[in-house]
């Protein structure tokens, strides 16, 4: 890992791998978690597919719902596995160990994000199997490279947002739990998880402008459904906005973390579990 690379980069890469390792191991070591992490969200998705089917809606609506169900799993992970994570770390007394380690804090957060992404992807296999296998939902012919690109951009933007939220939630301390709860359902709604985001009109467009989940989902739907997705903006434009999200959230997350660390050192609070 170290050949030819600067020592600080090697250190951060090792930290990323180690922190991601926790989540990857967790995803295979506790199979029971699949029920809460994958099966329950898939149940909600099934309800929408069956509802559209019962109402005789166009088949594309069923696909919209399945894709929404898949993406919702990532949003749950971003909120609870990233947003609230530093707060849980503090409660476990682990945060000060991270703050005293020489690796960068962004490396720790990146490891969490990477591990969370891999773990959640293994969970989405359940939603994919249920949606496309069990319920027989179909997509049109699509460009796999474009799908991968749009998906990765969406994930990068989402997890960068998670890194930002993790610092902000830590500042709010015990409110983190409530913040997660209060962000879960409204974001589901504003991202149009189970319906075309265009149905929200101007509100949907505004929401897509600030929530990467909605924009990314819309782009993925357009790649897989074409015009039937009733997309908000051209895929290319949405990909560019997602790219901008990545940069903005990365910079903000870094700033928030630096501020948080400074605050912690000045006030002596945030690294203590009882404060």
């Amino acid at each position, binding site marked *: 890992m170290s050949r030819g690379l600067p020592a600080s980069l090697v250190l951060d890469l090792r930290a990323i791998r180690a922190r991601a390792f926790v989540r990857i191991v967790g995803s295979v*070591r506790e199979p029971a978690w699949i029920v809460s992490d994958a099966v329950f969200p898939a149940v909600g998705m099934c309800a929408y597919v069956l509802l559209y089917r019962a109402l005789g809606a166009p088949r594309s609506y069923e696909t919209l719902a399945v894709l929404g169900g898949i993406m919702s799993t990532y949003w749950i992970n971003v909120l609870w596995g990233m947003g609230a994570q530093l707060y849980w770390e503090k409660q476990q*007394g682990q945060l000060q160990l991270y703050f005293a380690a020489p690796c960068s804090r962004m490396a720790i957060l990146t490891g969490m994000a990477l591990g969370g992404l891999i773990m959640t992807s293994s969970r989405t296999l359940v939603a994919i199997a249920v949606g496309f296998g069990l319920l027989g939902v179909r997509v049109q012919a699509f460009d796999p490279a474009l799908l991968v690109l749009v998906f990765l951009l969406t994930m990068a933007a989402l997890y960068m947002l998670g890194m930002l939220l993790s610092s902000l939630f830590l500042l709010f301390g015990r409110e983190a739990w409530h913040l997660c709860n209060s962000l879960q359902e409204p974001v589901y709604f504003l991202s149009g998880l189970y319906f075309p985001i265009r149905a929200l009109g101007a509100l949907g467009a505004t929401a897509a402008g600030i929530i990467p989940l909605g924009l990314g989902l819309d782009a993925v739907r357009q790649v897989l459904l074409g015009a039937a997705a009733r997309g908000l903006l051209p895929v290319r434009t949405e990909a560019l906005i997602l790219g901008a999200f990545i940069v903005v959230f990365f910079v903000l997350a870094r700033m928030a973390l630096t501020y948080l660390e400074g605050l912690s050192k000045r006030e002596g609070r945030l690294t203590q579990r009882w404060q």
Partner: protein
Amino acid sequence: MSDPRSALAPAVETRGLRRTFRASRGGAEVLALDGVDVRIERGEIFGLLGPNGAGKTTLIKILSTLLYPTVGSARVAGHDVVLEAVEVRRRIALVSGGETSGYGILTVRECLWMFSQFYGVPSQIAWPRVDELIRIVDLEEQAHTRINRLSTGQRQRMNFARGFVSDPEVMFLDEPTLGMDVNAARSLRAYVLHWVREKPGRTVLLTTHYMAEAEELCDRVAIIDRGRVLACDSAPALRRQVQGGQHVELEIRTPDGAGAVLPGLGDIPAAWGAPHPERGTRTLKFRLPPDRVLLPVLRRLEEQGLLVEGVSTRETTLEDVFIAVVGRGLDEPEASG
């Protein structure tokens, strides 16, 4: 680590270190450190001895870059803890006793490896070191056990091992044996001694409540109280400072049982020792100056309604030094007002 400036510098050096906290928004300031000057040489095991709230943990947190000093400066291995925090972190490790670390889903072995990675230890070095540490803290049978299935004591031992996985230059041990059983604490103390002597330049800063631990391990001890270093020397030298006179222990039956208010002995500082609930007594400890005799002291206690049931004298200990320097025992609460 090959930085010549770092290699020649003392392990720790603080100058006029002061740290205040604000208890709550708009609340009064609490002084945790009040002008601490400490110099710890490479290869030393240096003890910080003081009661709760003396400032020991605050000092360790500043040295391990977790807190800013309010005033003053601190350098670890030649690097400023504020301006060169990353350089300091590369060279240190921190273990706080009574705390646990790691993720329940990981095994002991995996968890220790994970922490080694945060310090950039290559895996081919990390794994053998992890296995060696697991053997040292007597967790071989639990090496592949998930952390959430360990007992509290086992987790504490794992946490201790965690500090050594990065092979730091300067180790901060904050009450490392707190709450551990006697055998585990003894073997960990032996390992600390071995670790420091094994390679030149390794240094330990140890905070402890346990006088015996400080006596056994430390080359030098600083007695700290209310944020100030009141004495700093080797344990024998500190003992010599308070030699003369007799160290007296009285077993006293108090009217209202153990835990009574400390009796007044005039200008002789005294401290309560351990209570003996089975006998309804408690030990009172003090040093009788060479020009004084015991009888008036016993009379004075009698006047306060205290019945002396036993008298013994002994050699000077670090605890005697502590009482002489601080004016109360290590576990004695500060007198209010």
